[in-house]
């Protein structure tokens, strides 16, 4: 009984060193920053054999936003600053007074909501080869902001909550009611001028 040997404790002080080494390895080789950006869907390339059909879009349904090589902005037919663009786009898309020069609306049946006058407005974004990316993103950002604010207004009116707090189905409804119709023009249109 008295000769019971004590098992010597294992020296664990180096485990911490090993773990630190691993930790440092992961700290060096990985990145943490979440990536953010503006999502877009490009239009598919038209088939070469297919005859290019002129999409007949009524003139009142289109707003052309042009950025030239000096990063100056032209929306519709008037030059403006980037800060003014958002309100212009909001007015264009919502057309509150049913102005005949602004886009028409069609009553569309939205699943889970009912009838809603959806605007047929399309924003056509054109840029020059010399436009800086910085200005281009700034304009894209304003366009998204305008649409997001309209969706927010829609959400407040119908659900009393901002768009981001809606359920997924409600967000889908808002997306259908205020679609994001931004067309990025073919570059050939751009080089002409």
């Amino acid at each position: 009984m008295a000769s019971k040997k004590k098992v010597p404790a294992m020296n664990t002080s180096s485990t911490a060193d090993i773990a630190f080494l691993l930790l440092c390895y992961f700290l060096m080789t990985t990145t943490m920053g979440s990536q953010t950006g503006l999502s877009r869907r490009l239009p598919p390339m038209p088939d070469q054999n297919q005859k290019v059909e002129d999409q007949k879009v009524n003139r009142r349904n289109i707003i052309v936003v042009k950025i030239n090589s000096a990063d100056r902005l032209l929306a519709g037919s008037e030059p403006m600053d980037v800060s003014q663009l958002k309100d212009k786009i909001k007015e264009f898309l919502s057309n509150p007074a049913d102005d005949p020069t602004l886009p028409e609306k069609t009553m569309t049946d939205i699943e889970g909501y009912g009838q809603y006058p959806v605007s047929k407005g399309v924003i056509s974004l054109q840029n020059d080869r010399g436009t800086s990316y910085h200005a281009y993103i700034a304009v894209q950002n304003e366009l998204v902001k305008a649409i997001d604010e309209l969706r927010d207004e829609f959400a407040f009116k119908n659900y009393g909550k901002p768009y981001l707090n809606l359920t997924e189905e409600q967000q889908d409804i808002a997306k259908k009611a205020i679609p994001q119709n931004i067309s990025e023009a073919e570059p050939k249109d751009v080089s002409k001028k």
Partner: protein
Amino acid sequence: MSKFGGSNNKKEVPAMTSSSLSDIVFMLLFFFMVTTQLRDTENKVVVKLPEASQSVKLERKDLASYINIGTPTLQYQNQYGTDARIQLNDSFKTVDDIRDFIAAERESMSEGDRQFMTTVIKADEDVRMGIITDVKQELRRCSALKIMYQARRPATD
């Protein structure tokens, strides 16, 4: 101890148990392993992202392929100049190489995930739109239509 005399009669300080230290470090390790992702490429171009307040988070990082556009870093400037260049994976490429790059990226994904593939355009804010338009046209030709212009949220929200 006592047989060495009074001069050595100091009390020994008990050793600190460091066994829990490794647990703490492992916890840190797991935290970083879970929250970070492996950096797959080395940046050979300088990219200062433009600011956009409306930027949204990229949903599936594993389905993204990156196209970096910017001026080469200092060590490559004598070789490639200071004009904006495209970097795919680890080397400088031209617009024509995008097709192969996209095809390779598609190949590496599972069948069901291919439709969700996102091409992230990571361009410096000072590049001209010409090169980006070329890239966009090439992407349309490869029918990689889901793109994202990478941007950062401004610091003051």
